[in-house]
């Protein structure tokens, strides 16, 4: 995938997917059925994966699908079942001070959007057109090189973290 060579098709895809993602994301937090919310979440996550492909990071996209859609959502659905959430409409999902959350969210978005537009303006995605390096970003080979070379230590730490989380989750969730 080459960035910024022909932006038009890319832009079309971007906006279509982005619109779907935005709508789905809002549905996740507004819909009255927990299972439906999880399904909308799948849509958002898939959309994020698609955006990664548009950003020429195939490997991250693949991982996104594998880990998020394959594992995290399934885990969430298990959680829904195990906690006997009401299947079907549940009017009692939003708390009484949702307006506080709404104000916070709007303010967060406002500040972020303002500062982003102010600072980055119309900067193109690829840093400099002549920058060869920026054209080949996203190569899976490069990712693996970086992951097992430059960033080996964080990688190992992450695996220890996962182990810790695993043990912690078992300890928390088992009955005794």
């Amino acid at each position: 995938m080459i960035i910024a060579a022909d932006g038009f098709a890319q832009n079309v895809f971007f906006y279509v997917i982005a619109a779907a993602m935005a709508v789905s994301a809002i549905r996740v937090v507004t819909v009255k059925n927990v299972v439906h919310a999880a399904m909308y979440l799948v849509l958002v996550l898939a959309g994020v994966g698609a955006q990664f492909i548009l950003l020429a990071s195939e490997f991250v996209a693949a991982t996104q699908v594998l880990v998020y859609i394959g594992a995290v959502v399934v885990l969430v659905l298990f959680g829904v079942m195990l906690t006997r959430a009401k299947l079907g409409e549940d009017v009692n999902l939003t708390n009484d001070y949702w307006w506080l959350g709404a104000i916070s969210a709007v303010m967060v978005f406002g500040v972020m959007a303002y500062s982003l537009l102010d600072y980055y303006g119309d900067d193109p995605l690829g840093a400099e057109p002549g920058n060869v390096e920026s054209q080949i970003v996203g190569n899976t080979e490069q990712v693996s090189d970086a992951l097992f070379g430059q960033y080996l230590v964080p990688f190992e730490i992450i695996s220890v973290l996962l182990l810790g989380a695993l043990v912690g989750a078992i300890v928390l969730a088992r009955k005794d």
Partner: protein
Amino acid sequence: MDDVMLNQFLILAAILFSTGVYGVLAKKNAILVLMSIELILNAVNINLVAFGAHNGTIAGSVFALFVIAVAAAEVGVGLAIVLLIYRNRHSVDLDDVAQMKG
């Protein structure tokens, strides 16, 4: 509409982030809160990869991968906590979890 801008991705991420913030703050159901956290983390990932592409480095992708791993750990532990709450109070309603009331 011909060139892809960095800001498209950043604004999209901002939308996801704010939606996630709303969900975290406004939902009563603990599992929905966890889902909203996933939204926030994904927004961060989009930012990371977009900036990585912008700067022409691989670091963005690598850190996105790290975030994905951390998110997996977070969901695991988070759901375990939710299950624990459910087992003790037969409800995942966060409004009920208010022992810190002053």
